[in-house]
């Protein structure tokens, strides 16, 4: 290659040469003496490593905040990254920094640069001023505090950080980070890095990606790297060859027709949230409960399906929506029902040389839907149980019932027995109570660090009861557990 690989950090070109391909963007930045971004957990939970990345927004750009600990530095070849140091300095505080400093938003200061980056991303969000939004709890504000959901602070209790965010006005169009957004973001660079610890490839198009997959049995596919990064950091996994596909245009299709919604596998969850704009209400219930904004900015739909985690949050919803997957390889494309896709714990129908190109949701959608996620923490947590329900009730009878489950078996699965119990029956408390008991027996929940098996079963049951009460106009009470139910 003639072009040398490098990342533009705070406006200066920083060469990637000499770094192992498993170097995270965080370690790369810290190795450059930019120690503002910190490692707090190395798994995308705490946000101390958050940085800004320029991403396309139509013909313009947007500043997107990401967890630098999870992504390979090489994936940012040719890209523009801004750290807390690049947002402002001690003698020239940026408005975000000034609000944070003056309002007591920092105590120990370790999480602060990450908060500043998340807050700056929202500060510059192009549609912020007009959109307005709410976190569902606090009053409506033009600053969506959900932008800070992926940053943990152990000192402040968050109130002063919230106040700092809500005190922000609109950016000065002349400020450098603001004016930068008028120009397009860098296109993805075709990158090939060979280092002693492996090979890193960002192919230019789908054909190249598929060729690599066909030729190299050891190739590991990475998209947003929010799952792979955890494997690297916490479990010491290494790959002889990484193939990064998150910017391939062919995987970023978004199409709406009368028959179906097609969602490109490499679209990030944040992009999907924006593109769908409420057209699939069930998914709208998923997004705010799916990890955090920092993760959703990187994580792709294809990644969440392809890793086949039993506790991923999009699979239950897409199962209830009866989605299909489009799998592509050098041999052609095939469409498989998502319900058939998961074959075992983190195993799927995807062949080694295939990529998930898109997920397709058939229309019309069911009228009564609910995504019921149970976790220890109210937000930014992993599901103990996730239940997605999509029901059609006509003339007092359940016409169609589709229920997707997560966290109760080795794979995400459809609650087929429950669906069968509901369909064709009158929509009454009696039907609901009967079906809820069937639902409680679906899957094979286990006791683990997140929840007990008994609680998981109870949550399955209660998911249907809640839907009946809150959206189905029925009054039912959860039956109490027998003597076996629940440890004290």
């Amino acid at each position, binding site marked *: 290659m003639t072009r040398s690989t490098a990342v533009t950090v705070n406006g200066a070109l920083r060469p990637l040469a000499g770094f192992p391909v498993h170097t995270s963007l965080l370690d790369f930045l810290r190795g450059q003496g930019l*120690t503002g971004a910190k490692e707090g957990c190395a798994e995308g939970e705490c946000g101390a490593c958050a940085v800004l990345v320029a991403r396309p927004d139509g013909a313009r750009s947007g500043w997107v905040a990401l967890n630098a600990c999870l992504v390979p530095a090489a994936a940012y070849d040719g890209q523009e990254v801004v750290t807390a140091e690049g947002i402002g300095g001690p003698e020239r505080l940026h408005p975000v*920094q000034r609000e944070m400093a003056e309002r*007591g938003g920092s105590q120990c*200061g370790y999480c602060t640069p990450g908060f500043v980056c998340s807050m700056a991303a929202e500060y510059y969000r192009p549609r912020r001023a007009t959109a307005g939004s709410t976190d569902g709890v606090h009053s409506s504000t033009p600053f969506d505090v959900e932008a800070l959901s992926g940053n*943990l602070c152990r000192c402040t*209790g968050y109130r002063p950080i919230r106040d700092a965010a809500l005190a922000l006005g609109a950016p000065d169009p002349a400020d450098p980070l603001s004016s930068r957004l008028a120009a397009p973001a860098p296109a993805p660079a075709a990158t090939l890095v060979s280092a002693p610890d492996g090979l890193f490839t960002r192919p230019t198009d789908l054909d190249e990606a598929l060729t690599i997959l066909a030729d190299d049995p050891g190739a590991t596919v990475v998209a947003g790297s929010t799952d792979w990064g955890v494997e690297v950091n916490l479990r010491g996994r290494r790959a002889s060859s990484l193939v990064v596909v998150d910017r391939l245009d062919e995987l970023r299709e978004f199409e709406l027709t009368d028959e179906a919604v097609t969602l490109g596998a490499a679209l990030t969850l944040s992009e999907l949230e924006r593109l769908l704009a409420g057209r699939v209400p069930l998914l709208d219930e998923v997004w705010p409960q799916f990890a955090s904004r920092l993760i959703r900015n990187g994580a792709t739909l294809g990644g969440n399906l392809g890793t086949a985690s039993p506790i991923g949050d999009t699979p239950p919803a897409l199962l209830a929506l009866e989605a299909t997957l489009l799998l592509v390889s050098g041999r052609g494309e095939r469409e498989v029902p998502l319900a058939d896709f998961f074959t075992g714990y983190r195993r799927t129908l995807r062949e080694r040389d295939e990529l998930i190109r898109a997920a397709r949701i058939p229309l019309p959608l069911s009228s009564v839907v609910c995504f019921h996620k149970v976790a220890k923490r*109210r937000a930014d947590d992993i599901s103990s149980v996730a239940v997605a329900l999509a029901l059609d009730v006509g003339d007092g009878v359940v016409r169609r019932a589709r229920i997707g489950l997560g966290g109760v078996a080795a794979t995400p699965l459809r609650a087929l027995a429950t669906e069968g119990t509901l369909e064709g029956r009158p929509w009454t408390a009696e039907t609901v109570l009967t079906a809820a008991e069937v639902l409680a027996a679906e899957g094979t929940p286990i006791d683990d660090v997140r929840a007990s098996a008994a609680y998981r079963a109870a949550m399955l049951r209660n998911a249907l009861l809640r839907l009946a009460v809150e959206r189905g106009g029925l009054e039912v009470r959860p039956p*109490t557990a027998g003597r076996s139910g629940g440890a004290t």
Partner: protein
Amino acid sequence: MSRLSERPEDGPAGRALPHESAALHVTGAALYTDDLIGRTPHVLHAHPVQSPHAHARVTDLRIAPAYDVPGVVRVLTAADVPGVNDAGVKGDEALFPTEVMYAGHAVCWVLGESLESARLGAAAVEVDYEPLPAVVGLREAIAAGSLQGGQPTVERGDVGAGLERSAHVFSGETEMAGQEHFYLETQCSLVHVDEAGQVFVQSSTQHPTETQVIVAQVLGVPRHAVTVQCLRMGGGFGGKEMQPHGYAAVAALGATLTGRPVRVRLTRAQDMTMTGKRHGFHAQWRVGFDADGRLQALDATLTSDGGWSLDLSEPVLARALCHVDNAYWIPHVRVHGRIAHTHKTSQTAFRGFGGPQGMLVIEDVLGRCAPLLGFDPAELRRRNFYTEGQSTPYGQPVRHPGRLRAAWDQVGVTAEVDRRRAEVAEFNATHTHTKRGLAMTPVKFGISFNFTAFNQAGALVHVYADGSVLVSHGGTEMGQGLHTKMLQVAASALGVPLERVRLAPTRTDKVPNTSATAASSGADLNGGAVKDACEQILTRLEEVRAGRHLTWEDTVREAYLSRVQLWAAGFYRTEGIEWDSTAMRGHPFKYFAYGVAACEVEVDGFTGAHRTRRVDIVHDVGDSLSPLVDLGQIEGGFVQGAGWLTLEDLRWDESNGSSRGRLLSASASTYKLPAWSEMPEELHVATLERAHEDGAIYGSKAVGEPPLMLALSVREALRDAVAAFGPERASVDLPSPATPEAVYWAVDRARRGEGGHVVVGAPGIQPEQPAPGHPPLRPRSEQHVGADA
């Protein structure tokens, strides 16, 4: 007003200022220990070899394979230790153990050119273990009699007679889990050795002196050969009071052996599996009330889960016993304490230091007994408050109990508690699947180290001939704003603008023999020392001025030219305190900090998920030294306490499988701390008016720990909400932490009309009493500094 508490009117003390490093924090310019790595050439990285077993004998250790890994420079083992192979002050914490005592225990350490090579080198080390039986659960340890350390008892009056005379007697058990500190910055040390053999340790430590002591102990050198510096910490919360020492010693050992700088920085998983946490506690109690709901007698036995070694378990236990009374007068008391020995991390200091655990016991007792007595819990609490002239079970008069009542009444008014109680009742009457609860709880927290000797501090104040001032003191900055307060104290004491004063990093070669920055005492102790140093200088400058009106700069210049000393070492010791830790009696605390919180929660009956709708706090910080800093401590402490009580869930594998004893929640994805979503939706914090503290610096009070315990109001509000799912006047048991699952099962029991497990009447549950000849808390057991002398 004392001289100590007398505050100059126009100084910066008392002004609401941002954290002194805020501009550095927000720009990423603030440096933490690990940020120095890139500025340190040729640094070596360390990685531990961790035991998979909770308890095992190391029968063979083969390090040769590690040297086959490219980049591995050195493997550190017990054979390399020139001094004492112990990371603690009690001789029970082998740095390189031959018997591993918990899953994750480091057997040896590998140094590499990169962290990756050290990691791979550690994976190549071969260790043979002979597994031994492991005690993991606290109840299991109690049943097996697996105890360690002293067994103190706080006693007053005649508990037996008190219970006999009580109109109502109840008994029960209470258990609470521990808590991971989860400071965002994990443990980190960077050590280099200079040409003269001076060991320079940069460490994220709350206790630089003790880090120095342990490094010197391991290296077998006098303390003057070791200097420890702490720039700042990314959070401490007690977790860096004793825990950093061993890691600093490993880095120091590596640096002396290789001649190169060595960095030890724990990953989050290592930090969670290797370092101590808040103690979980188990309590058995018997309590008597008179017909009017007044506490008559409390007989209790508290057992803490100390983990594999003692470190701070004894003083933590002592503080727990000294806070079982919380804000309540109990005429007859006998509270006995024990420390379980388990094969887990060595549990240690954590904000509150046993106080929260002790208070949880009495609040649990009151919350569970109130319905059985037919009392509103808030009324039951209030009528038992201390009044003037009463003293604690350990014999200390309770000064200013009226301030607690004032705070209680103020919260009642500002939070509109009566009106909102009616609203909650109305809401609950009209909602089947969601219930709300409202509760008020008080805090009375003793300020000072129980162990009297620790209540001393030093400072070094330099005035340079240009009039600029450099302040060094023995306290460390972990985000609590101590340095901000010390700047304010120095500028106020000298009568100079804040901009003229700069604060130097904490170093053991500036101020020696310091106490830990702990027990909320940092500002009280170091503030006293800074003020003393400033006043020495000021006295000399007054002589130079001789009544003339000279500017600060002119005075300083003239003083220099007149050969007047422009620097001073300040010293402070807290007066009027004494403590007998064998008898568990005395006057250990300089004063009490008071606070009251009212909390309203909502519980979802389908899942047990809950949210905090509103919190109102009135807290006593005396005359605040730094109101913005204090507000941050109150709010942050409250949320951290709420995390302990309602969310944070340490899970250890208690099965008999091969992973027995391992911490299952050893990552940020399995151990959840309060996030954005747990912030109280409404949070109103006020500080108590007219709260001047005569015995402390500028009339202020310590604020680091006490607000954490205000979060007991969340737990009691949850109990109130859960009760609303069941029949009236039922007693509700609530596990701690009250996670959604725990609350769900509590709701389930309430719906079934199943009451709690409080035993009504005598004899009930008899708290286990110490066996004859049990060890008392050793008189010097809290004295860990200098324990090797």
